[in-house]
Each structure stands twice: as structure tokens, then as C-alpha cells.
């Protein structure tokens, strides 16, 4: 008898969890048209600095240097 009650309780618990999960998911639908606005303002462990009218943000894969640049991204 006890075994039967344990099995029945486990079954009821499983079905209940499934139903309540399904109800939660269907009532919290993701809006696929929502605009992408990631809540990230700077890269992971990057750094950010403001100078000369702009903001420079560096990610971990880019290192600044004091040496004279050989060239730049500015078009002629």
C-alpha cells in the first residue's frame, strides 16, 4: 500500500510540475519582434576612456601602446 501511495504521489507531483511549467511558459511568450538592446555597456573585462570628444573602449584582445602608429584607420 505504501509503495502504491509513493508511486501515485510521485506521478501526481511530476504531472503537476509539467502542467504548471507549461502554463507558465505559454503565459510568458517571448516577443520575437522585441528590439535587440543588450544590457552591456562595455566589453567583458575591457576598459573605457573618454578623450578628445570621443569614448575609447578596449576589449581584452586589444592592447594600447605608446609607440608611434605606422598607419591609421583614417581615410585620406
Amino acid at each position, binding site marked *: 500500500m505504501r509503495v502504491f501511495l509513493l508511486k501515485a504521489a510521485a506521478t501526481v507531483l511530476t504531472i503537476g510540475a509539467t502542467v504548471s511549467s507549461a502554463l507558465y511558459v505559454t503565459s510568458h511568450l517571448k516577443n520575437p519582434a522585441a528590439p535587440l538592446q543588450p544590457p552591456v555597456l562595455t566589453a567583458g573585462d575591457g576598459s573605457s576612456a573618454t578623450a578628445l570628444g570621443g569614448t575609447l573602449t578596449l576589449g581584452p584582445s*586589444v592592447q594600447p601602446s605608446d609607440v608611434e602608429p605606422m*598607419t591609421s*584607420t*583614417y581615410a585620406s
Partner: protein
Amino acid sequence: MHPELSVNAHHFEAMGTTCSLFVVGQSRGRLLEGESWVRHVGARLTRFALDSELSRLNARAGEWIEVSEEMEAVLRAALEAYAMSSGLVNAAVLPSVLAVGYTRPLVEGPTVATLDRVGPTPALPEVLEVGGRGARVRTGSSLDLGGIAKGWMADRLVELLGPNALANLGGDLRAAGTGPRGDGWPVGVGCATLMLRDQGAATSSVRHRRWGEMHHLIDPRSGLPAKTGLDEVSVVAASGFEAEVIAKTALLLGPALAPAYCAAHAMASWLAVGRDD
């Protein structure tokens, strides 16, 4: 960092801008091969020569045209740029570019603007088909490959130059290898010098190539010169092509969204706000 190795450099004018090539451990002949490749491919992709592949494609809109391997690759890159930028980088802006007066190289001066005829740019996948070494542009549409072509070319060119090289095609650049000292290639990006290794960089700006109220950067949402509150965006990314797309997209997104967009897509970024906004 190891002792500084000697760098061979070569500068020349091509595609209406200054090109700079740098190599470590390669001969000057390799640099001249690079220049030759730039002139050869650039001549196919320019809109300023009537006999270029791009001009033929635009002039024969509505027809399937056989294209070279390079042209096919750049057209596919343009479609990829459109998808990556959710439509903000759109090579089909040429009618608007012409309407603002950018009908010839700016060293020859702009022509009269006719903005009454411009409107939002059509979606690139709706006006450009590419397949089997052929392409077709929809009647009434035309393409300007501009920065997309230069970013794509910098990526291909650096492979031609060697394992430790840097190619800068008018501001769209790609670095390969560890540079002359082993710690990267020093490149001016925004207000800083950054050391690039196997990375690309580009600047999108409305501070240059402008005349009166006009400038060359078209916002495809309006078909008019962009006015987003940002004047200049420079980014470092995995390739020159990606850097070009990310920089232009960020500039068009404006100061509210560009920081988050760059944080998500760029390895480094420089955002400069408009001086008169």
C-alpha cells in the same frame, strides 16, 4: 616581445585613396605584387570607371551579367553585410549617393544635389541576385560597393603579402601576424595607438568627404545623408570586412545604441559625438 625586425613599407594612390602596405620578412617585390593586385581588383569594383565590372552591372540592371570571381565574392560580402547590420549597411544606396552630388571622385568636386527624388533604399536581397558566377541588379537599382570592397580587399591582400603583414586601403585595414616587435602592428584608432594581431580595423566618419550640408554616408532608412549624432566610429574586429560593417552600423545607430552594439560586436571601439549636434 623580441628585437624589432625591419619592415618594408609601400604607399601608393589607388581607388581614390591612399593605400599603405607593410611586411616583415618579405621582399619589396611582394609589396609591388600587392599594389598590382589592388589596382587590378579595384578597377573591377569601382563605380567611377564606365568600363568597370560594377559599372556594367549597374548599367545593365535587369539582366544577368557574368561576373569575375572577385566581383562575385564582394557581392556576396555585400549581402552578408546587409544581414549582419539588419539592413543598415546596404550597397544599394548608389541612387542616393548620386542624388547628394557624389557622382564623381570628390577631388573633381561634387555635382548639384537633387534630393527631391530620393527615398528609403530598397532591401538589398530584393534588388541583388548572385549565383553561378553571375549577378543581376533589379531595374532602377544600382550598387556602390565602397567600404565593403576595401575591407574585403584588405583581408584578401594581407594573405597575399605574407604571414606578418599589414594592408591599409584608405582606412580599411587588416593586420596579420605579430608585427615587427612581436607585440602586434601599431595602428592609430581614434585617439590611441592599438596593437593589432590578426585583426581588422576601420573608421566610418562623416567628418571627411563632406560638402556644405552633404556628406557621403547615406542612411538607407531615409536615403539621405546620415545625421545620427555620431560623427565618427572606429572599431577593431576579427577582419577588415567585419570592422567596416560594424563601424558603419554603429555610426548609423547613433549614440544611444552604438555603445551597446560595439560592446557586443567589436574588439575595441572609438565613438565620437557630433560637433554641432
